[in-house]
């Protein structure tokens, strides 16, 4: 009886949801509000107004910078929650050697590759305005470099190279930096995060700064999450 009841209940909810979907505008219809109100403006004026060739970055960092800041805060909240529940690794702790020593071939290959990875990450983050990529992707690539290092040279080595004391600084800086950069526009009479009033070169610098802020936040969050999980694994 209970099974039948839950089945009927789920069917009812499913029907309701499907009815809602039927009421939504058809995907790809040129008469949709999303295709008639803001999008034409973005496409026709976006490149000129923002000096960004990559339209996705242009929208994310200029028209929708509030949303981007909200995303940064959300990511930061994830990190804070993970830290609150799982905690950091202990600073004073005997080194535990790796169970399996990786082959020298892998180590030397990684030593040669890692600088290129870092350069690629910086390239992706800095050129977010002009080509594929952006701060978020660059930051995540940078975090993956840290993870690769920890996987190959061992977690203890990674903790020594990038200790918790340094991570705290970057974690705190990440969101704060974004907001401070947004406050700058108040000094020239604009609203928060409104970069329109700056001249073209200064504006370019600010866009770059926002990209770097996004990269910093995403990168440090993912790296810290990895550290937190690895620390739990060792106990």
């Amino acid at each position, binding site marked *: 009886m209970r099974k039948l009841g839950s089945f009927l209940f789920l069917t009812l909810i499913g029907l309701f949801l499907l009815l809602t979907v039927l009421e939504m505008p058809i995907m790809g219809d040129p008469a949709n509000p999303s295709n008639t109100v803001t999008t034409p403006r973005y496409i026709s004026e976006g490149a000129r107004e923002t000096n960004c060739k*990559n339209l*996705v*970055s242009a929208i994310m960092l200029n028209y929708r910078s509030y949303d981007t800041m909200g995303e940064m805060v959300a990511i930061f909240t994830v990190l804070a929650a993970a830290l609150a529940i799982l905690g950091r690794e202990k600073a004073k702790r005997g080194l535990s050697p790796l169970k399996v020593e990786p082959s020298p071939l892998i180590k030397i290959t990684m030593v040669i590759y890692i600088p290129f990875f870092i350069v690629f990450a910086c390239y*992706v983050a800095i050129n977010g305005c002009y080509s*594929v*990529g*952006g701060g*978020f*992707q660059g930051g*995540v*690539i940078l*975090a*993956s470099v840290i*993870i690769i290092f920890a*996987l190959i040279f061992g977690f203890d080595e990674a903790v020594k190279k990038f200790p918790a004391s340094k991570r705290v600084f970057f974690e705190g800086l990440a969101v704060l930096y974004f907001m401070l950069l947004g406050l700058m526009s108040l000094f020239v009479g604009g609203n928060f995060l409104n970069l329109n009033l700056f001249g073209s070169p200064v504006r370019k610098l600010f866009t770059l700064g926002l990209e770097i802020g996004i990269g910093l936040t995403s990168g440090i969050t*993912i790296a810290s*999450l*990895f550290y937190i*999980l*690895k620390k*739990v*694994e060792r106990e």
Partner: protein
Amino acid sequence: MTSLTVLLVLALITLAIIIVSSRDMLAAVIFFSAYGLVMALVWQQLGAPMLALAEIVIESGIISVLFVVAVFRTSKDDAE
């Protein structure tokens, strides 16, 4: 909608079924990583290279590593 896109979408559906029905957690995570790669190709076919880059980096790279760590942490057999 080219034939390549159809092929990729079919591969996506197959991979999704494999992931859901897999009993081995580690295998599921590895198939999930492969799913991310195919998904990135689909994004590229749909004209969203930026999303494709994010998909490859995050889903195939970072999420897989975090999931592998979580699997090793939670399953009794592998934790010794």
